[in-house]
């Protein structure tokens, strides 16, 4: 009691017992930090460094030759097409789903939220398999598609569908909790003041959710461009036609063309680094705006 009074007058130094109780001794700090850093070094830094080292093993010339190879360029194009369709589709879905779930009350809402997360629980291989079962030659629509000379499986549409399934929850998952925490007061105000529904959405909602939306988009895009298992099942591995970048990496690697495999892989690794940097930046912005 006396200590507290004395302290409030500023005549005594703060008690030293409290910091010692909640802070670890120096050797504990040092050991734990070293263990954490070593683990991160072995499991995260080394794989990343290996990608670039292996890619440049035979010099810059071999690296660029591998990246400029026509099959590599075709795989880059296909990856851009798949992500270019899957990501916008899932953005529209994510915005619609979060609007319905965050702004309205209806029965079965928690069931719907769980169903949206479902693709995260499914193995990538199974995500590809189910589209084979629907659109493959022996699948539900297989006969009809063959009659009309349409190809989904072992062709680009199958790759787009599998990519869309795999990245389905990313945007919705970011936006639902964000819009729920923001509430609807600003939207009510806009509507009351005479704005139309679309005006309210574009002028009030979108500016409020833009960082969360961007966050969802970059994570969705990273997964869309890097997906391997699901795409592998539906692609058919036709060189220059149905190989995305990760599939092209696999083929080159299995042909013992290690430098070319790691060269294409290094482009995907650069995408991953770019994603992490942008993600850290958005988190920093978000923390700054909350402060």
């Amino acid at each position, binding site marked *: 009691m006396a200590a507290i009074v004395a302290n409030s007058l500023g005549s005594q130094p703060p008690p030293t017992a409290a910091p010692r109780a909640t802070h670890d001794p120096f050797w504990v700090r040092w050991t734990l930090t070293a263990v*954490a850093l070593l683990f991160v070094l072995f499991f995260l830094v080394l794989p990343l460094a290996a990608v670039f080292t292996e890619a440049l093993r035979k010099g810059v010339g071999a690296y660029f030759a591998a990246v400029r190879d026509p099959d590599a360029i075709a795989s880059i194009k296909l990856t851009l097409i798949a992500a270019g369709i899957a990501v916008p589709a899932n953005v529209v879905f994510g915005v619609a789903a979060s609007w319905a779930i965050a702004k309205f009350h209806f029965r079965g809402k928690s069931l719907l939220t769980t169903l949206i997360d479902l693709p995260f629980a499914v193995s990538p291989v199974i995500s590809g398999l189910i589209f084979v079962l629907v659109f493959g030659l022996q699948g539900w629509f297989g006969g009809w598609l063959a009659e009309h000379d349409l190809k989904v499986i072992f062709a680009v549409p199958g790759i787009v569908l599998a990519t869309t399934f795999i990245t389905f929850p990313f945007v919705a998952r970011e936006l639902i909790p964000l819009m729920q925490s923001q509430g609807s007061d600003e939207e009510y105000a806009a509507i009351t003041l005479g704005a139309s529904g679309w005006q309210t959405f574009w002028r009030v909602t979108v500016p409020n959710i833009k960082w969360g939306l961007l966050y969802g988009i970059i994570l969705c895009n990273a997964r869309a461009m890097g997906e391997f298992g699901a795409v592998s099942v539906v692609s058919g591995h036709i060189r220059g036609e149905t190989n995305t970048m990760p599939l092209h990496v696999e083929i080159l690697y299995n042909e013992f063309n290690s430098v070319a495999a790691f060269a294409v892989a290094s482009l995907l690794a650069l995408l991953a680094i770019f994603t992490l940097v942008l993600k850290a930046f958005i988190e920093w912005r978000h923390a700054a705006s909350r402060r």
Partner: protein
Amino acid sequence: MNPAVTFPQPSRRVLPGFGLSLGFTLTYLSIIVLIPLAAAFLKTAGMSWGEFVAAVASPRVLASYRLSFLASMAAGLVDVFFGLIVAWVLVRYSFPGRRIIDALVDLPFALPTAVAGIALTTIYAKHGWVGRWLEPHGIKVAFTEIGVFVALTFIGLPFVVRTLQPVLMELEPEIEEAAASLGASRWKTLTRVILPELTPALLTGFALAFARALGEYGSVVFISGNMPMRTEIVPLLIITKLEQYDYRGATAIAVVMLVASFLMLLLINLLQKWSRRYHRV
């Protein structure tokens, strides 16, 4: 008339777009997710019980369940142990490069699994950066069960760290101060006060890492060597059956995995609910 009744209530009538947004959500969800998933279950419904059991319980399939389950379990446990240390260091201490390490924890989310797979294989192969130090001691990692475990540990780490970090940040220092002022040693405070607080988050992180590891394919196929009965994981077996045009066999195994994943999803939801209630008190 009572004025309180005529006052506009914030209900679904005020904001527009309920029908449009929910209608679109349900249609899109059905086309992309629900109908394709139903196809897997309907395909196996056409099999007889004997056929189904023969497909999902042959010795080779049982060996792959065993490997997938045990390697995912081991990887999840190692992730919990080191993930707790990494999260603790990131939240409690400050050191140069902390923010870079923090960002790097998400690498397994951002790096395509095939890239991680070939990189890990190169590192742990005979002449690789780590493999060359382990092989002389008789420890083979690449193309063995240990390789599967290493790849799954890589994949699972961010789940544990990202689940623990917010809980650690919200842990009130007063509780630790109280424990210390009542005479508890730092070790006792850790084991009796801090760890019990973290239990729901640790379990959730483990379940998330374990669930992801069960289904993982890309990072494992390169390092595992894919020897039947020894280093074949369940997703690889599904691909093998598909390549042999055994669609029924592949689907039957997929249904077993799907049921396992849905049970994990249910468990994770319950754990998260528990953890939320636990921390509100």
